[in-house]
């Protein structure tokens, strides 16, 4: 066995080009001309998305040149090594570059500059169920999925019985998976992934998807792989899990590794910096904060009953959304508001500040915190995101600002049996999960 690291990342850079804003036409004639030329300009636009010929990336990477507006530097001069057998935690807020890094490591996308060396087979729990086809039977999907995940047919043959045992679908092996329940499908998909036996495993946010049972299985599997001396890259927002399971943690921010060390140290430093929490967003610089001359947003947070910033909220307990803003000009009636969205992009509700104390009343200059209580036993499990806005109601009616995806938080159900799901531990659908009053009429026959 070689003593070289399982993963080594050297001077890794990844640039993306985003679509550039198109200038608006002044007149109908100009608009018509632009419409006629649009195939050419569309072609140029699409081409520019991956062509970097016009900019000197070497100079930008070395810091000698400013970054053009339409270029995103997703991974910046990253350097790190993961020794064989280490469980490395990767933390950082959304958009920090973690996913891009993982995409490069799993070879889905190529780096723009730099080099990565991976010793051993790498696979990722992100890919659970990739390539499952509804018309194929459980057996066929097991082979297809197994080979997609990187196994040879012979390897699938060898573990096939174990996969079937583990998934518990042996009776339906020759039934098309379109007749499976969601739970059966997930179990089979996970069983295939769990028997992959990779030397390097990537786990990305697995803990926030799927039902609780599935998450627990993933955790167990990860722990057993870790104990078997395999290398794991664990990306998560679940700080307790990161601290418990990892030997070492790195923090990624703006595409760079900003901290690297013992889990407790890195995690506590990350949490203290505030930006580590997706359920807290702050705009310390008033000039660049959302808003205008009248209102500027200062912070948005999701808090628990103790007023602590909460990444995850117990489904049974109430939580609070706080919108902190500065009023820079007196004499306006303001309506703070927010909307709550689920992962599917469905708006769960819109809420407007109806605090009687400020309703219809002109606000003097100052700092305000608008606080809304969301009762327990209302939201369903999953990741929620919040858009915030402040509207002006009088003298003019207009939007002071609308900020999308200000914060996100997770609603979790810990299966104690006293939540709205009762004793049922499977996947429960629905946009909300209220606690209903149930009663039964019974007559013995």
């Amino acid at each position, binding site marked *: *066995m*070689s003593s070289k690291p399982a993963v080594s990342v050297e001077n890794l850079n990844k640039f*993306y080009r985003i679509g550039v804003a198109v200038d608006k036409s002044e007149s109908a004639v100009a608009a018509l001309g632009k419409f006629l030329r649009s195939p050419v300009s569309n*072609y140029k636009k*699409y081409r520019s*998305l*991956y062509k970097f010929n016009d900019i000197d990336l070497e100079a930008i990477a070395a810091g000698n040149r400013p970054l053009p507006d339409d270029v995103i530097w997703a991974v910046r001069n990253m350097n790190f090594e993961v020794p064989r057998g280490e469980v490395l935690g990767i933390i950082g807020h959304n958009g920090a570059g973690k996913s891009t890094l993982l*995409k*490069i*490591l*799993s*070879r*889905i*996308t*190529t*780096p*723009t*500059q*730099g*080099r*990565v*060396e*991976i*010793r*051993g*087979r*790498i696979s*990722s729990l*992100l*890919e659970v169920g*990739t*390539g499952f*086809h509804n*018309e*194929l039977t459980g057996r*066929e999907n097991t*082979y*297809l999925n197994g*080979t*997609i*995940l*990187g*196994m*040879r*047919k012979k390897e699938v043959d060898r573990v096939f019985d174990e996969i079937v045992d583990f998934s518990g679908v042996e009776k339906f092996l020759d039934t*098309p998976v379109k007749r499976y329940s969601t739970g059966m499908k997930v179990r089979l998909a996970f069983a295939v992934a769990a028997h992959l036996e990779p*030397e390097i495993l990537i786990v990305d946010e697995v803990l926030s998807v799927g039902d609780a049972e599935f998450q627990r299985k993933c955790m167990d599997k990860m722990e057993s792989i870790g104990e078997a001396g395999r290398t794991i890259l664990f990306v998560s927002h679940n700080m307790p899990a990161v601290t418990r399971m990892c030997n070492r943690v790195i923090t990624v921010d703006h595409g760079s590794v900003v901290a690297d060390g013992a889990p407790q140290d890195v995690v506590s430093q990350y949490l203290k910096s505030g930006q580590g929490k997706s359920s807290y967003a702050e705009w310390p610089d008033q000039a660049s904060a959302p808003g205008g001359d009248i209102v500027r947003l200062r912070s948005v947070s999701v808090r628990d009953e103790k007023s602590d910033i909460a990444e995850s909220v117990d489904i049974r307990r109430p939580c609070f959304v706080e919108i902190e803003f500065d009023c820079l000009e007196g004499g306006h009636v303001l309506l703070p508001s927010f909307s709550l969205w689920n992962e599917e992009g469905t708006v769960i509700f819109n809420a407007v500040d109806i605090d009687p104390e400020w309703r219809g009343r002109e606000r003097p200059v100052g700092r305000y915190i608008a606080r809304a209580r969301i009762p327990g036993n209302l939201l369903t499990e999953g990741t929620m995101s919040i858009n915030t806005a402040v509207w002006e109601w009088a003298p003019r009616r207009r939007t002071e600002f609308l900020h999308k995806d200000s914060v996100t938080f997770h609603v979790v159900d810990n299966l104690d049996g006293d939540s709205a799901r009762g004793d049922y531990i499977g996947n429960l659908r629905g946009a909300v999960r209220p606690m209903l009053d149930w009663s039964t009429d019974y007559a013995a026959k």
Partner: protein
Amino acid sequence: MTNNVTVIKPDNSWFPDFSELRAYSDLFYFLVLRDIKVLYAQTVLGFSWAILNPTIQILIFTLIFGRVAKIPTDGIPYLLFSTVAIVPWTYMSNAMNGASQSLVTGQNILGKIYFPRVIFPLTPVIAKLIDFIISMILIVAVMIYYGVNVTSQIIYLPLFLLVMIAVPIGIGLWLSALAIRYRDVKFAMTFAVRMLMYTAPIVYSATNIPDAYRFYYSLNPIVGVIEGFRACILGTPLQWQFIWPGVIASLVLVVTGLIYFRKMEKVFVDVI
């Protein structure tokens, strides 16, 4: 524990890495199997469609171009003349359609996991061969009906089978890589396939083309395939001077397709 090292770095190679394909041969096999099994899932007629589709087309063409328009076919009965052309053409058009949309339909997998991307367009080209093999029954049936005697020219058939497969591979590589970024390809495809059909001697005979233009005409690799099929099966003269241009064109199509695909492969995921 294996000690195989994977190096990930910006890649400027011109060709896809074929040695890598061997490691993924099992996956390729299961993907082809999936395409075959899924195609006729939940149909009553199942694989009969592989026969029914070209049959209907042959009958329509025989009626319109053979009976009504009376297109000259060098003395060959029109039914025979068109069957020998439509069977390989149906394969080529199906394979081209499947291959050119392969990356768009597979983008879910594309964004989640790595395997050699070139497998995507190759899968439908191979999977549709099953339909082709089944529909060969039509050719055999028509040959028996007209009592066609097989000539020694049949030994060249494997060459035309290879070109028949190479054409959709080449076009599939080009169009799948284009389609992932320009969704226009999907809309242009229906139209282009129909155009291609009329540019090739499927409903008419290539001898109708004036000799001065025959060379340029035969640069279309589909022309070579169709003429080759007729010559091998029906024993019409094999005019090699009008077949080589198409064979070479199909090779050029495959090689340039591979280069273009390789070039685009690096940015697929970033522009989906």
